[in-house]
């Protein structure tokens, strides 16, 4: 999938920018700021692109040009092969702005219904989609509350829901996780993964790098209106000069041996040994999920974890449609044994296999047996982790299936 999205140039670019420039001018038409300065990039179908950069680097300006809200000063910009100002392409675009501008007096349901009307959706369809989206973003219980009363996170969720109302082929999310709690962030990321699986194109701008790292195939890093780096995340982030080994807690004698080997080969300050840590996000989600199981009451957003039915049509929930979608999108169908673990997990598993190899070579023959045993345990654990991840995903999809029934 990765290869198809990044390397395979067979798919037409959804977005193509050549020499894109945006100069803001003052009242007397004198150039004031060059927000975007001669940038070239392409976004291919089915790709999740991260647009990164500090504040004022030109991310939002680029996004607004993609949407036809600002006009380029120079260069050429096409979206679905047409000018961003073409009204027809907007049928396939979903947009979540940086700040969620909603009509405060409309209720959550009315808000979604209004935006659905702009797509000329028939009444029954609108109602169905709105209900499913509200359920998906965890605001079903607040459907009749005016959005003016919503917390920032809740408003953000409604904003996300309205961006999905037309089941867009290109979703543009400007700081999608800002204002969301870690749970919400996770859900947004899951949603992006889901959309990616369905062959949708997603452009995410953010300065929360962990968000981008989790979901994006490729990133563009902007600074001062220019592209400073771009490429596939795996290529950009792996440090070829270093290795990492993760094992279960080692008995002191084994650790001693390992250290001996390391000291024989490396200088003291070239390596270090410590306990790996969970990320805070993982820890937090763990705590909240436990609380959820214990059914603690909350008044905030409560996502059902159901992806809206019309959005999940054509993904695993419906294999025939999925295959059709794949054929249409020109993709190689994925193995159907289990939901594909995501790239990170795949990489982890590979890494672990490699670790085992290295351990063996490091701990010489006399320790080979013990090390092999450990490595085996290691492998078992890796497998367990993998199947755990699979279970999680299955859960997600299972829930979706339930929603579908």
């Amino acid at each position, binding site marked *: 999938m990765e290869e198809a999205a990044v390397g395979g140039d067979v798919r037409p670019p959804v977005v193509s920018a050549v020499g894109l420039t945006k100069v803001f001018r003052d009242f007397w038409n004198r150039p004031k700021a060059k927000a975007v300065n001669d940038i070239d990039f392409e976004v291919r179908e089915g790709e999740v692109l991260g647009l990164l950069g500090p504040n004022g680097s030109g991310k939002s300006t680029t996004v607004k040009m993609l949407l036809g809200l600002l006009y380029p000063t120079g260069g050429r910009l096409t979206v679905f092969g047409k000018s961003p100002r073409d009204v027809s392409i907007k049928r396939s675009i979903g947009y979540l702005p940086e700040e969620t501008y909603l009509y405060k*007096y409309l209720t959550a349901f009315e808000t979604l219904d209004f935006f659905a009307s702009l797509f000329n959706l028939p009444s029954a369809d609108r109602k169905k989609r709105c209900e499913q989206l509200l359920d998906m973003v965890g605001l079903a219980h607040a459907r009749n509350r005016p959005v003016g009363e919503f917390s920032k996170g809740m408003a953000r969720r409604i904003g996300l829901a309205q961006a999905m109302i037309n089941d867009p082929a290109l979703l543009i999310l400007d700081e999608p996780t800002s204002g969301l709690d870690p749970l919400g962030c996770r859900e947004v990321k899951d949603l992006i993964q889901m959309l990616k699986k369905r062959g949708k194109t997603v452009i995410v701008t953010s300065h929360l790098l962990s968000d981008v790292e989790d979901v994006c195939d490729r990133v563009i890093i902007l600074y001062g209106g220019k592209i400073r780096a771009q490429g596939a995340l795996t290529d950009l982030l792996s440090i070829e000069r270093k290795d990492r080994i993760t094992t279960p807690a080692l008995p002191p004698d084994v650790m001693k041996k390992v250290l001996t080997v390391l000291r024989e080969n490396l200088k003291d300050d070239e390596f270090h040994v410590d306990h790996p840590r969970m990320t805070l996000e993982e820890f937090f989600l763990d705590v909240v999920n436990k609380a959820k199981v214990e059914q603690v009451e909350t008044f905030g957003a409560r996502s059902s974890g159901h992806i809206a039915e019309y959005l999940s049509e054509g993904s695993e929930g419906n294999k025939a449609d999925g295959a059709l979608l794949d054929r249409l999108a020109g993709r190689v169908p994925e193995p159907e044994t289990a939901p594909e673990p995501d790239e990170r997990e795949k990489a982890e598993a590979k890494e672990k296999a490699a670790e085992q190899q290295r351990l063996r070579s490091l701990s010489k023959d006399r320790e080979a047996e013990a090390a092999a045993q450990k490595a085996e345990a290691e492998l078992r654990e890796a497998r367990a982790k993998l199947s755990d991840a699979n279970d999680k995903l299955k859960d997600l999809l299972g829930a979706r299936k339930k929603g579908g029934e």
Partner: protein
Amino acid sequence: MLPFLAIVRLTCRSAIRSNVFRTLLFLLALSVILIPNTIKGDGTASGFIQLILEYSLGFSGAILAISVAWVCCSEIASDVESGQIHLILVKPVPRPVVLLGKFTGVLVIHTALLVLASAVVYGFVMYQFMRQDFPAEERQRVENEVLTGRRLIPPDKPDFAALAEKELKHRLETARMDERAAIEQKIAGNNRRAVLDAIERELRFRNGEVEPGGVIFWTYSGISEKTPDPLFLRYKLYAGTDGSKNQETTYGAWLLRFVTRTDRGTDDKPDFTENIVSLPPEEIMTKTRDEFGIQDTILRMGGAPDEIRRNVPPQLMKDLTDRLVKNGTFMIGFRNYDRSGKKIILQEADGPYLMVRETGFLNNYIRAVFVLFLGILAVALVSSALAAYFTLPTSIFLAASYGLLCIFSVYLLGTIAEMDASSLSAGDKVARMLSEGVFFLLIPVRDFFLTSELATGQLIDFARIGRLIFYDILLRGVPLFLAGMLLYSIREVSLAMKR
């Protein structure tokens, strides 16, 4: 269509939530409910009903016009500034549809309010008229002069241009040698037109002057003899040439032309004898508009009983009309009996007008309300055009300035028109053209407030409504709106966003 309707609905909901709109709504309720219940009028039934009509409906129209300007500006401009428009413009809805939807939403809600307010005012007028204990004569007067729709017929005018030519010729012929040279010098070159215009103005003015003891006649054409209706004469006169505003009294008598069909004529070509009969001289208030019923006056003078006068039998009305109208023409005169020997002047603008009932009050009322609607439409068109491009404060400022200029444009244009073109320097001429150009863009809002016409039972005829639609809506309002729509379609909306 669905996106358009969704935007219309959203705009209506948003407008109702605006604080300014709510304040104006409160004022509207006051003008509809409070004014009719507190005003006293001049004590007469017709005065009372006229005041209700003029104030309640006039105020309602004015409040709605202000409100529509405000709400148009805020609905269109504030959405752009707050960024809410971003979420709409990235949807597959063309920008002109967005603007049109917002415009329509504002217009719909104001039209609904106008209909509601005018229905309440109408109901109240009728209720008061039915309920109050007016004397029978008063009641008759209200029915004849207020609750009706009468066409205004101006007197036939002499061909002033031809008369001016004749006068100039006459002056040249009768002038002494030296005077003639002066006149000839004056009319040399392009100035002949200006001299003729001056003479024409003089003639027009003199045309309405009645010397003490003198008499003046007016003829009115195009009066139907088939359906004899009561005829009314509306007039306003001035005594002397003093410019004071004080009213005073003078004396005069109206002269009626009575015609009798003779046996000499045929049905196709009737033959008449005419004679002029003077009504008794009466005391007349100057500088105030007044009117009287012609047939009714004859009956009164002739001592007809009140019951007959209140409800004139059709045959009697026909007989009277037959004696007054000849070949579709009616003639009336006025003799000056001023006690202090002053001239009496009847200005061309004041007629005097002959008024003939053409339609009922409800019909005329609906027309007046429709014209108010046109006024609100014009304001909405202009304000939307301004808000489509400018920020909220700027567009409201411009809309207010435009409104003020429109109100005063009548006076300013009058001043420009009165300037003697021949005496202007080149710079003045350029300035004059420029100001005329600017004024062409202005819609004279006063033209849409026809409540005083309505209150005096004057027909709001379709020709007038047609002129308003053509000159003010189609020729000015719509092009301005389209220009706004174009700017709205090409502007970079994100630039206008407030941070």
